[in-house]
Every structure is written in C-alpha cells, then in structure tokens.
C-alpha cells in the first residue's frame, strides 16, 4: 500500500515499519488494522497458544486473506516474522511473541520491514516491547452506555515520529468502517467568540 498522508488518519500505521500493541484489546486492534491493509495477511502465533481467530467473527473479506503460522519456538517465531516482513506482497504481518523483544530483535524486524516495504504489528504482553518500535498502542475495550456501540480506547503511548494521543473508537468489528468518538474533556483554549 502506498502511504498517502492525505488519506492517513490518526489510526493509520506508518508503512514499512513495525508497531506494537499491548493490552486486552490488542487482537481487536490487530484485526482493525488488518481490515485496513489490502493484500495477504500473515498472523504468527505460538503453536501452543489457546486463543485462535474465529473465522465467523472476523471482519468481512479477511478470512480468505489470512494465513496462520504456528511455529514451535520463540526463535522460529521471530524468524518467521522477519521472513514475512521481507516478502513484498504481504499487506500486514501480525505476530504474538511470548517473550520480551530485545533491542536487537526489534531493530532487525524494523530493517526487515523496510526491506520488504511491509508493515508489522507485534501483539506484546505488558511492557514486553522493544525500543525500536515505531509506535506503541495500549488497547483496551471500553464499556459503552449505548447498546449499539462497541467502544475501544486506543491510546498511542509511544511514537517515534509524531505525537502521542488517545482515541476512543466505535468499531463494530465487521468492516473497516469506524467512528471516532469525541472525548468530553476540558477545553484548553476559550471557544471562538460569536461573530
């Protein structure tokens, strides 16, 4: 996907970089990003992981693009991530490493992503990320008072080139469509005077 800054919104992942997501809602965030990336998807999860993506619940058009890799060990998993990032036609690589990523591993993944022009998303445990990541998101599902909305709170807590921020998103999980929910907060500057 060609990166088009005009089209990019706050939730767009920078292309050809590796990003990290943590928190309870990280899989939902990964699926949201997967629905926004065209092309084949590679989801790498350890062989003994009990949590599997369920085909009937995935966003539309995602099931037939998804490839699951289930390597047996952590070394194999990182090797698979690197190999998948280097492959040009892949749209997004999602991986669930079990151990904290070392700086070396994080840097190698960034280089692989740049070589293959592929975006990667690591679903990490709490504070198990690497400093080499482009952005880090702390994803939590949020209870919504309105029965028709499924709210997610996706704050960006680290960004190498840009600002951090916090967004509450209403995304129902069926397509790539979403609504940003304006957060009720204190206004930093006075409202514009009436003309």
């Amino acid at each position: 996907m060609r990166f088009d800054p005009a089209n990019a919104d706050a939730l767009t992942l920078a292309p050809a970089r590796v990003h990290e997501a943590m928190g309870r809602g990280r899989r939902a965030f990964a699926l949201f990003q997967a629905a926004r990336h065209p092309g084949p998807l590679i989801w790498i999860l350890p062989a003994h992981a009990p949590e599997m993506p369920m085909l009937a619940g995935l966003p539309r058009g995602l099931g037939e693009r998804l490839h699951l890799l289930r390597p047996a060990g952590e070394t194999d998993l990182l090797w698979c991530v690197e190999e998948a990032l280097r492959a040009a036609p892949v749209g997004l690589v999602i991986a669930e490493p079990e151990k904290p990523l070392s700086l070396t591993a994080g840097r190698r993944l960034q280089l692989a992503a740049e070589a293959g022009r592929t975006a990667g998303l690591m679903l990490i445990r709490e504070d198990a990320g690497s400093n080499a990541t482009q952005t880090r998101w702390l994803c939590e599902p949020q209870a919504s008072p309105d029965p028709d909305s499924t709210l997610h709170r996706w704050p960006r807590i680290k960004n190498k080139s840009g600002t951090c921020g916090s967004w509450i998103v209403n995304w129902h999980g069926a397509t790539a469509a979403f609504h940003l929910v304006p957060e009720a907060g204190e206004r930093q500057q006075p409202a514009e005077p009436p003309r």
Partner: protein
Amino acid sequence: MPLADARAICPDLATRPADLPREAAALATLRRWAGRYAPMVATDGADGLIADISGVAHLFGGEEDLRADLQARLDRAGLAAVSAIAGTRGAASALARHGGGIVPDGALVQGIGRLPVAALRIDHATAEALARVGLARIADLAGLPRAPLARRFGPGLVLRLDQALGAQAEPVAAEPEPPHFGVRMTLPEPIGLQADVMAGLARLLDRLCAKLALHHRGARRLRLELRRVDSGTAEVEIGLARPMRDAARIAALFARGVDEIDAGFGIDALRLTAPVTEPMAPEQTGGATIRHEDALADLLSSVGNRIGFDRVLRLLPAESLIPERSFLLAPAAYSAPSAPPPRSGPPRPVTLFPPEPVSHASGHPPATFRWRRMRFSTLRATGPERIAPEWWFDDPAWRSGLRDYWRIETQQGPRLWLFHTPQNPGWCVQGEFA
C-alpha cells in the same frame, strides 16, 4: 468358489484380502524388467504380461532358450509364472493360461486346438452357450463356417477366434513409460565448497525444470542426494508450497539445507529427483498479480521448510454450528482459499479458546463473576443462543450437554462470550468479541 465353501472343505485355509493397487504396481515393475526380452511389453489383463518377440528370439539362442532363460530368472526371483510363445497374441495368451508351452510357426490350430473355448478370452455366457451345443474345444470351432457362428454367438467370438488363429491382427500396444523426473551429475574431482554444490545444483535444476516443463508438470517435493567420496550420502529435501518449475526460485530454497550438510572428504556425484510432481499448465510469465502470487508461494515454501508445512495454515469455513468446528485449519500449501459464508445470525467472537469456567457467578445471566482472577460485572447481556451438541460425534468437550451462549458486555470493558450448560449447571467463557 465362495470363501465359506472353501473354508468348509479346508478349515486350515489361510486367506488374505487382495491388494489390487499393490499387485498392479508389482506387475508394472515386472513389466519394466521384462523389457530386457523385447522392445514392446504390455500388461495383459490384471495378471499377465505380453511381449512382442518378433526378431528377438535368436539373440537368446532360439525360442526354447529364451523361454527357459525367462523361467529360470523368474524362479530365482521366487515368482511362479507360466509362459507361452505363439504366433499370435490370442494364442499365446490362451496357452499361457492353460499350461504354457511353445506353438511352432504355422501350427496354431494344432497347438491350441486342445484348449477349452473359454481360453479365447470370451465372456462366460458365450462359453456356456458353446458348451451346450457341444463345442467344448477350440479345434471344434476352427473348422466351422464363420457366418453362422457370428449370427448365433455374436461377432465377439469370431473376432477372438480370428485373433487367436492369426486371421485378424492384434498388435502389442505397449503403454508409454511414465516420465522419470530425476537427473544426475558425476564429477571428475570431489568438491566441498558450498558455492560449488550450489553451482552443480543450478545445472541439475535447469535440466530438471526443462523436463518438467516438457511434461507440463511442477515439482512439489525435491530431493538432492550428494554422494561423498567415502561412499556416504547426504540428503537435502525441500517441499514447495505449490507446483513450481522455476530453477532460480527453487535453488534459493535449497540454500539452507546445503548449508547444513557435511561434505566429508568431498562430494563426487549429485542426484536431483522430484519424487512428488503435480500437473502444472504453462502459464504466462510476468504480470503484477502473478508475481505477487509467486512471491507469496515463495514465502510459504521457505517458512514451511523451516517450521513444517503442517504449521503453515489457513482458515477454511466448515459446515457446523459448533463453534470449535465451524472452521478448519488446513495446511496452506495443500488448500485453496475460500471465502466464508456471509455473516448471519447472532454475532461471533473474534477469538476463540477452549472453555474456561468462571467462578462466583451470581444470577442468570451472571451479574457478577470472576474469570482469570479478575472480577467482572455485567453491563449488558444478549442471548441466549442455544447450541446442541452434534450427537453423531463423541466430543469430550461437549459431554456437558446443551449450551446457552450469551454475549456479556462487562462494566470493565471486555465483551465476552459466555455459555451456560443447563444440563450440568455452570458458566464458562469461550471467546472474546472485538
């Protein structure tokens, strides 16, 4: 004779079920071997071979010597076989199934005349009808006028009789040999460097891929055998995510295996075979989509060769309402992607895991509960959706009976997929919604 009758006559009878594919494979092997006696060898029925030995017999010292040589070799191999030589295919086939022997040239009627008419490869009904009118032997038929025979017993009998007696030609149609996808190279001096092995491999791959292209096939598995000077061998085997015959891309997959082999004192012969091939039509080269598919297949091949092709998976829809069986995990290299059916009915979670019981559940649906050492209180519950077990499978996870599924939105945020088992009261979490 039915098996029960045979058992009644001989109670100690040892029987085995017939293994037809293996018998056919053994016969095909024997056919290849029999090529040493004649250029044209074909299988004759399920249990026979027929060879056209015109102009060959003198190489073995005559027909008697040829047949004796054949019998001696088969005996030494432990095969009990009967052989016959005759001027026509029909006569040889008939004689071989009734004792064997040699029919001299020009004496066909005398040679096979004493055989029963059933030896003419005619169907059972015709043979019985002939026996009823007193025509039991071939010699009885040979002198009869053809036209009344054909009118009464059909043209098939006359055709078989003419074929056996040489009035009708019946050539031996040997089927073509299946192509063998293997190439080898012997080296004058042993080599040990990785680059040298890869260079040798590149030459072998060029030849093998040309052969694959000629037969419109693509390799699925490739094996490289390296013979060392101390007569040891090293093997590298790779799998491919889809049929392929592109030398450069296959060579890249061999690099890791070649890196690991022990060359010892040097390698003096290379042999490359494709044990598993699949049909692959010629396709247009170039084009963005084709390149993308190729690149993805390359990725799956290289990953599959390291972690195993059974770990490179794809989700395929399945016809079942049971959540665990509503999709299949199929090896991506051996399945084609298929779109899941459009969403209908109650929503499904995005992640599914084996059921985990909740504790301290209060109410129905539970207003508060504990799961994974966290406390949840229900904000909104949608359901129930009852799913009954598939009684035709005995699934240990479903022995607790019916399940009532609820979508529970918690105050704490997570939206969980809980179920209640009314026949065996208890609550479990099985999935998490987006």
